[in-house]
């Protein structure tokens, strides 16, 4: 009796089914050697940042974050990076991988060119604190300035605030933001002008400006009509390409521009 027949005739918990080696299992996942080329910076030892290579054997199911973990846990414990949920929701581990902003926890190694070293750098435009960790404070300051919370002038309802499916759909795309800063730190305007609000702040303003339950759209539009507001956008689409949640960031910025124009003209 083969193991498969056993499974069909007498079901058992999946973990107990013994499959022959040729039918799959953990051993079937391909392995390969990768080299991570990490931008290291430690102000306690040097003012200069340097590249450091780490070579290791990884599986086809591994992500860049797994490789970073392997380095930190097995090769060099001083390697510093942020990560929390490790599943693309918390937005902690945005970094510049092979020159593009991505989440390390959503980037599979097998999707990158493993024949060459994979470069891993901190996101640009924010001050580096150590290795891959940057100071997010300028980013969050812009975020706070656009008042990312519901402001409603009417009476407090006794039930939930009702909204039609169409009204909800209007700003659905921009609700997906996880504040990872991949967009803002991919923006060439933000690289040279840290005063620019940046795509993430505008996306989160968009989320409330176009929310039918919110009454402070005018205030947010006034804030973003600033010299460092939406008019600073050069529509290079770097932010849209960088967004790990697939938000149409540049389009959201354009919609805010149109809203400001429609209000003023």
């Amino acid at each position, binding site marked *: 009796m083969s193991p498969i027949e056993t499974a069909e005739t007498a079901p058992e918990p999946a973990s107990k089914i013994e499959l022959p080696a040729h039918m799959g299992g953990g051993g079937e996942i391909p392995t390969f050697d990768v080299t991570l080329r990490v*931008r290291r*910076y430690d*102000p306690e030892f040097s*003012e*200069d*940042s340097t590249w450091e290579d780490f070579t290791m054997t990884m599986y086809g199911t591994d992500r860049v974050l797994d490789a970073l973990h392997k380095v930190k846990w097995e090769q060099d414990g001083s390697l510093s990076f942020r990560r929390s949920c490790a599943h693309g929701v918390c937005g902690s581990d945005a970094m510049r991988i092979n020159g593009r902003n991505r989440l390390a926890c959503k980037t599979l190694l097998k999707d990158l060119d493993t024949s060459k070293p994979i470069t891993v*750098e*901190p996101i*640009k*435009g*924010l*001050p*580096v604190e150590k290795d891959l960790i940057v*100071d997010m*404070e*300028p980013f969050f*300051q*812009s975020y706070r*300035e656009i008042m990312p919370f519901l402001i409603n002038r009417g009476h407090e309802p006794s039930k939930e605030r009702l909204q039609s499916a169409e009204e909800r759909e209007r700003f659905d795309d921009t609700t997906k933001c996880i504040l990872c800063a991949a967009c803002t730190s991919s923006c*060439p*305007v*933000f*690289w*040279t*002008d*840290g*005063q620019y609000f940046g795509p993430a702040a505008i996306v989160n303003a968009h989320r409330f400006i176009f929310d039918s339950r919110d009454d402070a759209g005018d205030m947010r539009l*006034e804030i973003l*009509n*600033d*010299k*460092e*507001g939406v*008019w*600073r956008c*050069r529509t290079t689409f770097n932010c849209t390409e960088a967004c790990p949640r697939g938000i149409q960031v540049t389009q959201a910025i354009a919609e805010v*521009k149109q809203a*400001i*124009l429609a209000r*003023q*003209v």
Partner: protein
Amino acid sequence: MSSNVIASPRSNSAQSPKYKRNKGSHSSFEMVAWLFMRMSGVVLVVLIFGHLFVNLMLGGGIHQIDFGFVAGKWASPFWQWWDLAMLWLAMLHGTNGVRTIINDYADRNGTRMTLKGVLYAAAVVIVVLGTLVIFTFDPCPAGAVVDLPSFCPVP
């Protein structure tokens, strides 16, 4: 504090570690400039291609262009105003474009102010000079050695 390689943004230089945003002036200048860029762009497409078509395609084509041709065109208020609109819109459009490029790339305040000063001075000189030329142009200068337009009195 940050590395030499990955540059920190302007707001974050050692002088202002608290990420203070410069207070906005509550003017809509940037919005007007943005709108002007789009609208002048559309108008310029019409003006410039009209200009090229009339000068290079109609009549004798490229070979007709000489002093007399230009003088003949500028004898008509229609072409005077056409060229004036083209001059002003192109200069303001181009100046505003370079202004935004300077804002984007010039990092230090001094560099930015200097470059913009040179830019505005050059724009003013060209616009004023061009406007003067269009409206004070003499199509029949005395003692000319070039072909004058046909309406000039025969010397």
